[in-house]
């Protein structure tokens, strides 16, 4: 359902100010969303000023620096620090991004705002609850489904068929796209969202998969697929440069192909 203002208990209030250390040469301020549902109360925005040269170039480096030297209670997910695990997806400088490959100096505002992925329940600070998104991903059965018996060796795929998966298989399931989509915000219970639909497209187009009719049947729904109104936030935020909107359009084309 469409919501245009945050519920009262979710509205952030001004939090703690952590001033710059003595003798700082290149100060950089970070406004970071803090919330611990176990403690109750409204979320707050804490401000940290660090010396840019003390941290690495990326926003994740700054977050790790803040956690290590200023505030060990700051909580966020991170793992690979090279844009392949998708753990550190968060809203940085107004746009969903991976903190590990988002350069601090690329932020448009002098004060870098760091929030969790939008419109998700918050587990703590910058950690969103992605359970519903994983469940939707599981619902499309993202594995090879076949009817013909398994061959003695691998199922072969010609290079031209394999090429159809380019732009789809690279998705790292960071859910930056789905959580940036207003249509997903309004209808997250029924709309599968760009990340899951891109994966659905990946399996429908896989020449080795033999469940395309069943997969398309599963998406033949006014909400699961057709809530995409080509807003294209998904495509503009994807940190891997993928185009979920195009994948959704491909599914719609296949739907029409079997209709007309």
């Amino acid at each position: 359902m469409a919501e245009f203002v945050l519920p009262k208990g979710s509205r952030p209030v001004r939090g703690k100010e952590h001033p710059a250390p003595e003798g700082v040469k290149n100060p950089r301020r970070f406004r970071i969303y803090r919330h611990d549902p176990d403690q109750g109360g409204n979320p707050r925005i804490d401000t940290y000023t660090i010396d840019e040269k003390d941290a690495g170039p990326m926003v994740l480096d700054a977050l790790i620096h803040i956690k290590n030297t200023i505030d060990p209670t700051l909580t966020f997910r991170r793992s690979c620090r090279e844009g392949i695990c998708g753990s550190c997806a968060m809203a940085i400088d107004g746009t969903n991004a991976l903190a590990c490959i988002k350069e601090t100096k690329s932020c448009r505002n002098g004060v870098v705002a760091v929030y969790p992925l939008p419109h998700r329940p918050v587990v703590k600070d910058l950690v969103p609850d992605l359970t519903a998104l994983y469940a939707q991903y599981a619902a499309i059965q993202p594995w090879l489904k076949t009817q013909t018996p398994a061959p003695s060796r691998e199922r072969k795929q010609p290079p031209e068929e394999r090429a159809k998966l380019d732009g789809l298989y690279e998705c790292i399931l960071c859910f930056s796209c789905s959580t940036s989509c207003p249509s997903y915000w309004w209808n997250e219970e029924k709309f599968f969202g760009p990340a899951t639909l891109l994966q659905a497209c990946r399996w429908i187009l896989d020449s080795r998969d033999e469940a395309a009719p069943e997969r398309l049947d599963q998406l033949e729904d006014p909400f699961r697929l057709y809530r995409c109104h080509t807003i294209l936030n998904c495509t503009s935020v994807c940190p891997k440069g993928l185009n979920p909107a195009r994948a959704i359009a491909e599914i719609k084309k296949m739907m029409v192909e079997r209709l007309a």
Partner: protein
Amino acid sequence: MSAIRGKYAPVRRALGLGAAQGGTHHWWTAKLTAIALIPLGLWLVASVIHLAALDRAGVLEWLRQPAHGAGLILFLLFGFHHSAAGLQTIMEDYLPTHAQKLAGILVSTLLHLAGAAFGVYAVIVAALRVV
């Protein structure tokens, strides 16, 4: 609100009551009517500019031409269909409860059908009426 909420496991909630096995027709007809309305809309604007210089008898004479009457009826049918489809999508997006969605879609559909029927009737009567 959905019948699938609250205590269910996440995948059960994601699956809900299953796919409605519909949606493509709605989406596709919305696109087709949109495409059809581009030339029809341009033609209507040009016609209205042309008709502005005519008196009542001249307008009725224009309307009696089969291509003109048929074009106007097509514009009305496609226009109302497109508007009904679009409004339904907007209501599905923004109305908060299932009951409100159903009521809104029902009222909108009836109004659009009435508008289309009234418009087509008016064109036919005007075209057939002897001045």
